[in-house]
C-alpha cells in the first residue's frame, strides 16, 4: 500500500516538472512512453479531431432547424410551460394505464404516472398532468374515483397558459442573460479574444448538443429543466476555465504536460459530478419530476462537457497556441 502511494506520487511529480529524473523504475518508463505516444498522437491529429465537433454542431443545428419547422418550438414543453393542471392523488389508485385510457377523452393531453416508495416499492401516489383547468380536472377525477378530493388526499397545481408562456419567455431570457454575463466574465478573465471565444463556444456547444439530445429522447421540458440549462452553463465553463488557465497562464512543463495535468483535474471534476448526480437521479426519479428533470439535463450536459472541453476547446486552444508560437516564437 505504502509503496504504491510513493510510486504514484513520484510519477506525477515527474510528468509535472519534466526534469527527467533518472529513475529507472519500470512503472515509470511505461508511463513515459504512454504519455509520449499520446503526445505524438495528439500533436499530429488534434486538428483532425475538430471534425467531430464540427459534424455534431452541423447536425445539431440541422436537427434543431428541422425540429423547429415541424413543431414550431425548440423543444417539447410540459404543462408547466404550456399551462394546465398537475394532480397528485395520494395513496393507491387503479394502475396508471387504466386511468389513462378511461380519462384521456375527458381530460386534454392526459399523462398519468405512479410514484413508488424507494424501498418498499409500494405505490405512494399517482400523478396526472393535463392541459385542462383545475376545476374540470377536479370534477372529472372526483366522478371517476367516487370520492371527494381534498387537501388530505391530493395536491392540485394549476398554472394558467398565459402565465406559463410568460414564464417560458422569462426563463429563456434568463438563460440568454446568464450566457451574456458569463461571456463578459470570461473575457475579463482572459482578456484575450480567441481563447475566451473558444470557452464560450464550448459552453454554447454543450447547451446546444444537450438540447438536441433532450429532443431526440422525446423529453417534455418543464420550467425546472430550463433552470437546469442555467446550471449547465456553470458546470461547463468550470472545466473550460481550468483548461485555458493551465494552458495560457502557466509556464512550467511543456504544453502536453500541462494538457495532461489539466485533463486529470478536469476529468476528476466532471466524473465526480456525473456520478453524484446520476446516483441522485436514480433515487429521486420516482419522486420528483422537477428534480429528476434537472438531474437528467445535467447528466446529459456533463457528457457533452467532457467532449467539448477535451476535444473542441482543447484542439482550438492548441491550434491558437501553435499559431501564436509560430508568429511570436514563444508560447504566450
Amino acid at each position: 500500500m505504502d509503496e504504491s502511494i510513493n510510486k504514484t506520487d513520484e510519477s506525477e511529480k515527474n510528468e509535472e516538472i519534466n526534469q527527467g529524473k533518472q529513475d529507472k523504475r519500470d512503472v515509470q518508463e511505461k508511463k513515459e512512453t504512454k504519455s509520449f505516444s499520446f503526445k505524438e498522437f495528439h500533436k499530429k491529429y488534434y486538428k483532425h479531431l475538430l471534425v467531430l465537433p464540427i459534424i455534431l454542431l452541423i447536425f445539431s443545428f440541422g436537427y434543431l432547424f428541422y425540429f423547429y419547422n415541424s413543431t414550431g418550438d425548440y423543444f417539447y414543453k410540459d404543462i408547466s410551460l404550456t399551462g394546465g393542471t398537475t394532480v397528485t392523488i395520494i395513496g393507491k389508485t387503479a394502475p396508471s394505464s387504466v386511468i389513462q385510457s378511461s380519462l384521456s377523452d375527458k381530460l386534454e393531453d392526459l399523462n398519468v404516472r405512479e410514484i413508488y416508495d424507494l424501498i418498499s416499492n409500494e405505490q405512494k401516489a399517482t400523478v396526472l398532468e393535463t392541459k385542462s383547468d383545475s376545476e374540470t380536472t377536479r370534477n372529472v377525477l372526483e366522478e371517476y374515483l367516487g370520492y371527494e378530493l381534498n387537501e388530505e388526499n391530493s395536491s392540485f397545481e394549476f398554472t394558467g397558459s398565459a402565465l406559463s408562456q410568460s414564464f417560458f419567455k422569462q426563463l429563456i431570457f434568463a438563460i440568454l442573460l446568464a450566457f451574456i454575463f458569463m461571456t463578459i466574465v470570461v473575457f475579463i478573465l482572459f482578456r484575450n479574444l480567441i481563447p475566451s471565444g473558444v470557452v464560450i463556444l464550448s459552453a454554447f456547444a454543450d447547451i446546444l448538443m444537450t438540447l438536441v439530445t433532450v429532443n431526440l429522447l422525446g423529453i417534455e421540458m418543464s420550467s425546472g429543466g430550463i433552470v437546469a440549462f442555467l446550471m449547465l452553463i456553470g458546470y461547463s465553463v468550470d472545466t473550460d476555465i481550468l483548461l485555458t488557465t493551465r494552458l495560457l497562464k502557466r509556464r512550467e512543463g511543456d504544453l502536453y504536460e500541462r494538457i495532461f495535468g489539466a485533463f486529470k483535474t478536469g476529468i476528476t471534476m466532471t466524473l465526480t459530478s456525473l456520478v453524484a448526480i446520476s446516483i441522485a437521479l436514480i433515487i429521486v426519479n420516482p419522486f420528483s419530476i422537477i428534480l429528476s428533470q434537472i438531474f437528467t439535463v445535467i447528466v446529459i450536459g456533463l457528457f457533452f462537457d467532457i467532449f467539448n472541453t477535451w476535444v473542441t476547446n482543447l484542439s482550438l486552444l492548441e491550434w491558437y497556441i501553435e499559431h501564436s508560437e509560430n508568429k511570436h516564437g514563444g508560447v504566450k
Partner: protein
Amino acid sequence: MKLKFTWKIWLLIIVLVFSLLSIFGFPPTFLEKGVIITHIEANSTAFDMGLRQGQIITSIDGNKINNFKDFTKIITEKFPSEEKVKTIISTKDSDYTFFSDEMPKIIVSDIPKTNVLLGLDLSGGARALVKAKDADLTSSELSDLIDTTRNRFNVYGLEDVKILPVSDLSGDHFMLIEIAGATPGDLEELVAQQGKFEAKIGDEIVFIGGERDVADVCKNDATCAGVRSCDQAGDGTYFCNFDFSVYLSEEAAQRHADITKYLETNITSSGRYLSKTLDLYVDDNLVDSLLISEGLKGRVTTQIQIQGSGTGLTQQDALLDAKESMSKLQTILITGGLPFKLEIVKLDTISPSLGKEFIRSILIAGLAAIVAVSIIIFGRYRKIKASLALILTSTSEIIIILGIASFISWNLDLPSIAGILATIGTGIDQQIIILDESKHSKHLNINQRLKRAFAIILGAYFTGVVSMLPLIWAGAGLFKGFAITTLIGITVGVLITRPAFTDIIRKIETD
C-alpha cells in the same frame, strides 16, 4: 501532530457552530418534549385564557405530553363530555385552567426537530398568484389590492396568510398569496372575486360595499347575525336561511329614502310590501332580492337586514353553505369591491402528506452522492487525509447553507434544494482544483500554488453569480429559491469553506 489551526480554519469552525445553532436551536429543539400550538381560533375560550400560537404544551391535567399522540389521546378521552369539565393546560411558562364541555379550539403538532423551514411544495399549503384581468396594475394599485385582500382574509377569519407583491422580468405585477397548512375550500372565490357589492332598487344604486356606504356590518353576534332556520324543500334538499344587520352611512340611508319615496305599495298574502325589491348584486350577479316592507317607504333608516340562504343535500350541508354565504357577503360588504377584475393565474394546493417521503428520498440521494464522491476522490488521490478534508468541507458547506437559510427564515422549496445540490457539486469541483494545484509545479511554494487555484475559483465564482442573478426575478420569483441557495452556497464557498480547505491542504502538504 500538533493541532494548530489558522484563522481561516477557525472561521470555518465558528461559522459551522453558528449554523448548527441556527438549525437546531439552543437548547436543541429535538430534545424538547410537548406539542406546539400551530393554530388557535381567535375569540375562543382557549384564546381568551391566554393560549397563543407558537406556545408549547407540556402537560394536560398533570399528564405529561411528549408528542402529538399523547395530546390526541388525552383530549379525545376527555371530550366531548356531558357537562363542563375542568382542564388545566400547562405550557413551559404557565398553566391555563378552563371549564368547557368541548375540546379547546386549537390545532397542535409535534415540535419541529429543526428550525429549517420548508417551502409549501414540501410542507403543504396553498399558493395563488393573482393578476388583474386585462389591466396592468401600478404599484400603488397593487398595494391597495393587497390591503383589501389581507383585510378580506382577516374578516374571513384567516390570519396566518402571507400576501406579497411580486413583479417579474416581463414587467407584470402579481399578488402572491401563501397559506401554510389548511386551505380554505373556497380560496379561489375569496381571492379572485372582485367583490363589487351593489344593492339596487330598479336601476338605482342604494348602496355599495365598502366603508363609504356601509358604516358597520354585524358579524359574530347572534343577536344581529346568524342562521335562523333550516327546512326541507319540496325536492328533498335542505335550505337554511340567514340574516344579518348592516348599518348604512347617513348618505346611503338618505338615498334609500329618496328612492323608496315614490314606490307604490303592493298587498300580498304575506304582507304589504313596496312594488320594487332591493336587489343585491355581487360582481354583477344577482344574489338575492329582498322585499321592502311598506313601513320603510321614504324613511331614512340606517339599519338594514340582509337575508339569504344556503342549500345542501343534508341539513348539515345546507347549514354550512348558509354560514359560508353569510360570511362571504359580510366580508365583501365590509371590505368593499376592487376597481378591477382579478384572475388567478396560478393556484397550487399541496397536500402535506408526501412532503416527508420527498425529504427522505432527497436525504438518501444526498448521502449516496457523498459516498460515491468519496470513493472517487479516494480512488484518485489515495490520500486519506486530503480526501477526508474534501468530504468534510463539502458537508460543512451543506450545514452552513442550511444554517443561513434557517437564520434568514428562508423557506426551502424544491428549487432551493436543487440549488444546494448544484452548489455542492461545483464546490467539490473547486476543491479538486485546489488539491491538484497544490501538488502541481513544485518549483513554486505552496502559497503561490494555492493562490493560483484561487484565481481559477474566483473566475468560476463570478460566472456562477452572474448566471444566477436573472433567475431571482424570472417567473414571478418562483425560482428565487434556486438562485438564493446557489448564491448563498457559492459565496460561502469562496469566502469561508474554500479558504479553510486551502489552509487544511497547506497543513497536510507541509506536515
